[in-house]
């Protein structure tokens, strides 16, 4: 009986999902097929999150299960992973702020939604953002911050991107605990996302418009 990996993973049944993967691999199944299933499952997880059926712990846990599945599948892969087709997104927590929980969730959701995410980490200087945009030509930039001090760091970062002549080709979103539409205006960003799925839909919208 073929058990449904996609449904099992989307329902966060860890032991069952891992057993199915192991069974499939033992039977010589194509690892790419398994990864297809997991991608579809993560799409369902994302949808449930945007409908408030799932919450942050569900996202975190799905990521943990996915990590374990990838560990099982990786040795069997002929080529490296699934090609990212969603477009490039540069993301980081702005200078002076070292909070990463929110940023990591956005990175994870962008990643499972097919984006090629370049995660610059925390306490990222304006110059580092500018250099990375030059190097990769990423059309979407995500600035994360938790503290009120991040307001000015975001503003400075966006001004630096402007000064480097890169602003017209980029769309910039901000996110974090004390962010709002007022802060979007203050920093000069294009949008503020109240949670990770808003970040994903903004990125989809912007990359789509760019093509």
């Amino acid at each position, binding site marked *: 009986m073929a058990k449904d990996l996609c449904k099992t993973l989307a329902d966060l049944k860890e032991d069952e999902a891992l057993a199915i993967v192991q069974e499939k691999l033992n039977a010589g199944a194509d690892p790419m097929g398994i990864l297809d299933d997991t991608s579809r499952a993560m799409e369902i997880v994302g949808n449930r999150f945007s409908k408030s059926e799932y919450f942050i*712990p569900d996202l975190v846990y799905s990521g943990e299960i996915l990590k374990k599945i990838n560990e099982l599948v990786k040795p069997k892969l002929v080529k490296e992973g699934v090609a990212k087709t969603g477009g490039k997104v540069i993301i980081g927590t702005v200078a002076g702020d070292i909070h990463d929980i929110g940023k990591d969730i956005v990175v994870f959701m962008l990643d499972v939604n097919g984006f090629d995410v370049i995660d610059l980490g925390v306490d990222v200087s304006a110059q580092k953002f500018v250099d990375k945009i030059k190097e990769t030509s990423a059309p979407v930039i995500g600035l994360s911050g938790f503290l009120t001090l991040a307001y000015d760091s975001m503003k400075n970062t966006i001004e630096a991107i402007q000064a480097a002549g890169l602003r017209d080709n980029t769309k910039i979103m901000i996110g974090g605990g004390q962010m709002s539409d007022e802060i979007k205006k203050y920093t000069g960003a294009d949008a503020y996302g109240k949670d990770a799925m808003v970040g994903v839909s903004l990125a989809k919208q912007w990359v789509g418009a760019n093509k």
Partner: protein
Amino acid sequence: MEKKGEAMTSEEKQEELFAKWISPEGVEYASPEAEKAYKERATRIKDAIQMKKLPDRVPVFVAPSFFPAYYAGITPQEAMYDYDKCCKAFKKFVMDFEPDGNLGAYVPGPGKFFEILDYKLYSWPGHGVAPEQSYQCNEGEYMTADEYDALIDDPSNFFSSTYLPRVFGALEGFKMLPALTGILEMYGVAINFIPFGLPPVQATYKALFDAGAEALKWMGAMGAFNAEITAAGFPLLAAGYTKAPFDVIGDTLRGTRGIMVDMYRQPDKLLEAMDRLTPLMIKMGVSTAQMVGHPLIFMPLHKGADGFLSDEQFKKFYWPAFRKVMMGLIAEGIVPMLAAEGHWTTRLEIMSDLPKGKTLWMIDQSEMAKAKKTLGKVSCLFGNVPSDLLVVGTPQQVKDYVKNLIDTCAKGGGYIVSNGAFFDQAKPENVHAMVDAAMEFGAYK
């Protein structure tokens, strides 16, 4: 005859703590006006909290993080390393803004003390963040997924021999210490003391002596500050703090990711550990409140916010142990002062299951009208003036916001004007506008 201890009801205990707070012993007020102002402010806050009678007007708090340092023109690094400068900055803040309630000068903490102990849990100015920025937590799994049994078996021993050496580099020597419960009788007793003769343990004790001396020095400055602003007529809001058991584990032991995964992989262990920590968290609050003679114990809330848990998870993991801690404090006459930073709108109904007039809630971005209709029925609320408004808004916008808040929340008492999240940056004129608006629109006629 005066009743004592066991014989007193929680109501009586609360009244007694409030009385001690409103008329503190041994204070030499700066002037008769200052004494009058102190008593009026403290009474105003008490009336707002108890919800039995209306205060003369809506009280106002200003609850900053590092704002007083920036406002006084010093860096957070200076505030952490120069206790005198720190106290001057916080005094200027209290004197200039004149809030009914203030939280003292404890926020910056003693920088040198953290240095002596090589504190790894936080990055602070000059140690991982720039001098002009506030300290920030380095989340991690300071307790691993398989250590629940060790924590449950003996929380104190787990903290001293496992957790503390992980978060304080200088406490490495604690790893070698025996469980003190092995020290029983003449036969074999000396064996337990061998570790104290070893160089790493002695180095740890040396660091502890130095850290203790520095902590005392800092506390001396804080005590002098408290005495000075009390004498000037400004009541301090909290005696000390404790935490919700879920946050104890989720913030600094297992971390956000760790505790979230534990809810799925080992829910029973997590629940058992929270059970074990609950009486310890009650004791932590009760002993401080009784020592200081102050009714308010601060509880910062973190991982129960909207989205961080499903409703089901909140009801199963967060709320029951948290409520037990609150009820344990309330039984001793203490008013838990809960800081619900971020959004808690979806939790408001559940959180309303509390006795009336026994808690004080800081509300940040939760829907205020709903908060008033739910939690606000049983508890005094303060806050909701947003951080972003204080930074980028105008004084007029702040005034309008506060007026609207008073219209929504102050009817019938049980509301205190305040910012909603502990803040670093703000335009001083906006903070003034918040306080002024409470005076202008807050009178109960």
